[in-house]
């Protein structure tokens, strides 16, 4: 091997090392899945998206015993949702916001809802409002209602701690037999009124 070729190979190896992947992927995934997930993670890195959620998604699939194709599909879908989330929330969105927004998109929220939430929250983080919205949707509150309520709460500058309390109260109401939509709307109305805003409507 000539000196020039040796130098080129060394440079290539250094470049490869700069984009090194999480070693846990190699340990938990089979070879074809590992290669495919790595390619998606590399693409996300080039697109300046957070890569940790993609690795976590692959590790989650491996832990849950999913097959390779399902893992690759899930990681790919998540990368797409993260790209949409960043577009909706703006380039200054944090990794946590993008991750939560991607989960919210997976739960059924729309890109438009994310944009409205961003505007309503201003410079405040939207991670907690999104977590609450995801929870409401998971408890059978319609997506449109859940989105509208958290946007109203964000517009009313409700604190994250109050949002967490709101989520716990709605959950308790539902556990006691209340209709999910009624419970969420009623609790949100009370919270907004207490913070000095105008009461939200379910379908706003």
């Amino acid at each position, binding site marked *: 091997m000539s000196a*020039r070729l040796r130098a080129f190979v060394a*440079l290539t190896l250094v470049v490869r090392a700069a*984009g090194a992947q999480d070693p846990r992927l190699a340990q938990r995934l089979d070879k074809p899945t590992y290669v495919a997930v790595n390619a998606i993670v590399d693409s996300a890195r080039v697109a300046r998206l957070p890569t*940790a959620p993609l690795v976590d998604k692959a*590790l989650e*699939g491996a832990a849950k015993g999913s097959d390779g194709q399902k893992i690759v599909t*899930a990681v790919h879908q998540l990368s797409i949702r993260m790209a949409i989330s960043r577009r909706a929330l703006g380039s200054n969105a944090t990794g946590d916001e993008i*991750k939560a927004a991607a989960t919210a998109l997976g739960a059924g929220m729309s890109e438009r809802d994310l944009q409205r939430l961003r505007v309503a929250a201003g410079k405040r983080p939207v991670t907690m409002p999104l977590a609450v919205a995801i929870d409401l949707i998971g408890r059978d509150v319609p997506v449109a209602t859940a989105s509208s309520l958290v946007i109203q709460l964000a517009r009313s500058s409700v604190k994250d701690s109050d949002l967490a309390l709101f989520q716990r109260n709605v959950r308790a109401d539902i556990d006691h037999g209340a209709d999910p939509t009624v419970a969420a709307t009623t609790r949100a109305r009370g919270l907004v009124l207490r913070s000095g805003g105008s009461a939200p409507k379910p379908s706003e």
Partner: protein
Amino acid sequence: MRDDDIVNVDDIARELRRPVQVDRSFDERVMRHVLRLPRHARARLWSRLTAPRTITISPLGWGLAAASLMLFAALGVLHAKDDFHRAARPIAKALFPTSPKASPAQRVQFVLVAPDAKKVAVVGDFNGWDASHAAYQAQKRGGGVWSVTAPVPVGHHRYSFVVDDSLWVADPTAPRVVDTDYGLPNSAIVVEDNK
């Protein structure tokens, strides 16, 4: 007698002070001999590293080298920016232990009521979904209650309980996460930096 001695000393001193005529090729012959002597390995290496040399390289070679360097720089910048926060936290913690941003994790208590369980673990984004992670093994308390208090980094995380290494259970006290990717339940937690 004493005067003769002084004269002799003066003669000797004069002779010693007289410039010596050395052959002009003397230096060259000495240096040639020195250079032929075996040298120490470190000296040979240093000589090879520091000796100027001419390298010829084709335009294609230059292009490949330049492209590789540019690619390396671009990937390095992207990689550094992507992992900046994760990398910065431990560094900040090491450098500024009292800094408000030096607290990347909070201790969180996870509780599950599972009277019939033999083993309960917490898995999530914060431990690589590893059910064997020692720090996230719940301990059995009274009344079928299992709990563990473990560090969770600041941020948004998805997690679940794994009962007896096979049953996945969402945390009934935490926000749910609709996740159709793998068909098993998850919960969400948002850990804030309290400091």
